[in-house]
């Protein structure tokens, strides 16, 4: 389209849109809105939302449950201590809510004792390395993280998550997220990721799960 044609077309569209009547609420709707907003706010938990729970606190919750699950996994699989990469996955319905560990593999019982003092021993999951011979992806996702998210996706597919109850408003529409819906938050180490699934699809064995960094809304993995 030529520049002149384009300008003309845009001017016509703007003129058409400008011919629409302005929209506003009636006084009744306005007062109903305010009443409803305050009613909802006051009926909810103490507002506004408290500051996010520090990652250490979330880690304490995750590791406390980990101690139980590690035992269970070891009993079921008879395969504890196989030297596989350490992994700690936690899924939660909301930031700061109760945390559910859905997968854990660890060869020993370290990092499961006392974290109340804040002197938390860092699990190896925080040591993201680019080694391991895996090819780096375009946004340099550490291979360890990719492996963890892959395992996390497997757990999500088997229903090991609590559905999100609050709408996520922090990730605007991105082309990569078109047709997807966030349905869970996954915590890997001290970082939360949003798990997205195709619109209208129940999470199942074949579901492609897309992990999104909620801070940047970048897709970090698609499993």
């Amino acid at each position: 389209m030529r520049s002149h044609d384009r300008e003309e077309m845009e001017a016509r569209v703007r003129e058409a849109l400008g011919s629409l009547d302005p929209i506003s609420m009636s006084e009744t709707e306005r007062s109903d809105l305010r009443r409803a907003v305050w009613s909802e706010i006051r009926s909810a938990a103490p507002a506004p939302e408290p500051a996010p729970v520090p990652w250490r606190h979330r880690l304490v919750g995750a590791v406390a449950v980990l101690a139980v699950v590690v035992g269970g996994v070891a009993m079921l699989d008879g395969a504890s201590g196989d030297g596989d990469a350490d992994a700690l996955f936690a899924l939660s319905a909301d930031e700061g809510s109760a945390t559910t560990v859905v997968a854990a593999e660890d060869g020993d019982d370290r990092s499961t004792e006392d974290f109340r003092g804040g002197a938390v021993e860092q699990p190896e999951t925080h040591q993201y390395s680019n080694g391991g011979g895996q090819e780096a992806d375009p946004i340099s996702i550490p291979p360890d993280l990719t492996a963890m998210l892959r395992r996390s996706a497997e757990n999500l597919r088997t229903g090991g998550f609590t559905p999100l109850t609050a709408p996520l408003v922090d990730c605007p529409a991105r082309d990569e997220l078109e047709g997807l819906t966030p349905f869970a938050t996954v915590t890997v180490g001290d970082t939360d990721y949003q798990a997205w699934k195709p619109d209208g699809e129940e999470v199942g064995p074949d579901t492609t799960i897309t992990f999104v960094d909620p801070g940047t809304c970048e897709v970090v993995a698609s499993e």
Partner: protein
Amino acid sequence: MTTSHQEEFALLARAAEGDHDAFTRVMKTHEDRIFAVCMRMLADREAALDVTQETFITAFRKAHQFKGNSAVGTWLYRIAVNNCYDHLRRNKRKPADSLPEHFDQADPFATEAVEASAHRKEIEEALASLPKEYRAAVILADMEGMSLPEVAQALGVPVGTVKSRLFRGRRMLAERLGEPNG
């Protein structure tokens, strides 16, 4: 940050500390424009009222997260547009299934008014038929008068993406309004 932005930022900071009066002032300033955007996005008055309500509840709860990197209004638009997207995802039906209120207000005996009303209906329907991302860009830029960087902030996309969505949205509108060269 302009004085107005600073004032609003301060109001929102007070709201984050639980000052309901401060939040009421923010709400009064923006409620009509947020409602208008929701109404244009959803073409459904009841849904627009619900999403406007949801937007302010979310804003109050997230007030402590607002860092002042954009105007409060832009931040509210962002919440509103995302809530509209969520609403559209949840209700996958043709959006323009109820007439905007102004159609009922036109004088049915005045030919001019009827024609104007019909034309407005055509425009409303063309707008409602756009993909939601294009629609949001067109509404914010062409109807709310926001600058490209403001629209980019409100939609959380780069300015280049806004330009592209605007161009495509306008071209689709032109085509649907009977502009063969659009």
